């Protein structure tokens, strides 16, 4: 309950801040919360289910591009949602199911999702037409469905977070934890581990898509690097630093990171990524104690 209250408090604070802050900063905050929702959704298979989703930014990017291609004028948001879900879930669910049926390990599966995302980045960069090539898409207008207001978007974020908490606490969440902690026993009890993991990955993709569509509507851009190595692995940093399996932890670390990145990144643009790399190496030493390496290699 305390975690849920914390999450609600963060989003309530965001609602108040959105009203108080100037437009640019309010958009930065809302985009940070939406990225946080993506990280929280990634936490479901990664932290709760023990399937490290290295390609976590893939559905988010698909969502952003769907908004850029189908809803760039602020209309047809539902079409963008539908297309993004069909593409991202339509790719990830069968991929996960087949991979785990063939007993690919979670770590290898995670790497496959990362390769997929990076390859999509390269495909987009080589396709200058509808998806804008290496320049990406810009000028995506705010969603008309929300009256161009940021509050309904934050409300959607609150709803998605509530759903994630509900899923985590449900019988499905319990099963997901069982597949992480005791996969052999869970299998012996008759549970279909590939199906459970596939559903968790599909849920993460679904929420990632929604967050991506909304994010593009807020920031107005979609670009190939959204599928790149950095965009994907930084989500794992947020999940790892936020304590995997808590859902709210990744949200907090993401929001804090994105705001710090915006504030300091522009001032120290030249050295920002070097410092980030150093910070990640040092943080990893601290994270190793809670590393779920055993779960990353179980069948």
């Amino acid at each position, binding site marked *: 309950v305390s975690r849920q209250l914390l999450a609600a408090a963060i989003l309530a604070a965001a609602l108040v801040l959105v009203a108080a802050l100037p437009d640019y900063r309010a958009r930065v905050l809302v985009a940070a919360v939406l990225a946080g929702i993506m990280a929280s959704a990634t936490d479901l298979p990664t932290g709760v289910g023990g399937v490290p989703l290295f390609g976590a930014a893939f559905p988010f990017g698909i969502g952003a591009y769907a908004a850029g291609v189908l809803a760039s004028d602020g209309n047809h948001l539902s079409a963008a949602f539908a297309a993004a879900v069909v593409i991202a879930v339509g790719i990830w669910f069968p991929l996960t199911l*087949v991979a785990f*049926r063939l007993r690919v390990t979670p770590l290898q599966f995670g790497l496959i999702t990362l*390769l997929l995302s990076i*390859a999509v980045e390269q495909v987009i960069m080589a396709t200058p037409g509808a998806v804008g090539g290496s320049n990406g898409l810009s000028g995506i207008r705010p969603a008309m469905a929300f009256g161009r207001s940021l509050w309904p978007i934050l409300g959607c974020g609150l709803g998605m977070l509530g759903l994630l908490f509900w899923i985590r606490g449900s019988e499905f969440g319990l099963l997901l934890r069982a597949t992480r902690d005791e996969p052999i026993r869970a299998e012996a009890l008759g549970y279909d581990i590939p199906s459970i993991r596939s559903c968790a990955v599909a849920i993460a993709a679904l929420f990632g898509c929604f967050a991506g569509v909304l994010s593009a509507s807020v920031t107005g851009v979609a670009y190939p690097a959204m599928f790149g190595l950095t965009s994907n*692995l930084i989500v794992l940093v947020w999940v790892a630093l936020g304590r995997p399996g808590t859902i709210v932890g990744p949200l907090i670390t993401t929001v804090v990171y994105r705001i710090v990145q915006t504030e300091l990144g522009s001032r120290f643009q030249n050295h920002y990524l*070097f410092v980030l790399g*150093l910070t990640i190496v040092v943080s990893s030493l601290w994270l*190793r104690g809670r590393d779920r390496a055993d779960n990353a290699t179980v069948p």
Partner: protein
Amino acid sequence: MPNEIGTVVTFILDILVSAGGIFLVASGLVVVYGWARLINMAHGDLVMVGAYTCVIAVDSGFPYWLSTLLAAALVGLVLLAGHLAVFKRMPQEGMSTLLATWGLGLMLTEGVRLLYGPGGRFVDPPVTGLVTFPGGVLPAYQVALFGVAVVLAGVAVFVTTRTRLGLRVRAVVERPDAAAMSGLNPGRQRSALVLMGGGLAGLAGAVIAPMAPVTPYLGPVYSTTAFSIVLMSGTRVGVMPIMAALFLGTTRVATQTFLSPSIAAIATLVLSIVAIIAVQGRLSRP
């Protein structure tokens, strides 16, 4: 008819050269991740550092071949230092290891960019001219690169399957507990493999440097290729990485020959993922 034969010969030569380059780029990761079980997300960045080392050494007046050795030594030592200082303390294949190696990769990319700028650097190939085959022609350096890959692959297969050193490597890779009980020191063996894998990454960077402009942002491209090969070949010591490189080389050349660039990229991706899942699924079976 001669034209058709020429087309087929050129097609096959392109596949062999492409597979050779892919094998070179992936060989370091095969050793570091496939054998030493260090999930090295900085692999592509290490290849890039190897390429830069070679370019800078040649610009400073060193002969090309000495620059290649310098690149291999420097990159091997960088990865070994990272392993001894940080990665060794972490669980094998854990998320913290993955993030730490990625952090190292970011530092390398940005460090090179801060030192030498984002623009491309060039180095002239040590071998110039064309080599004529019955029905086809190739730049001499591409033939040399393929030769290096063949020698490297031959040495790797011979050492791992026919020598005592290879037996030790296989013991540590496949049965680390049993290897430790037999008196081997898996930790020391892993460090040696990490040094060797880093050296191979540096060597690959130096060897492919004359093929294209060298920029700080090449890392992810090399990493993607190398991880595809490692995932296709698994941890098995022997010919699997060579087969995987041939498969990926064939897929790339065939799709680029017959399809548009975007479709070719998607087709290569789909075929690679299918191959990875199929091979891993097969290898994972008891």
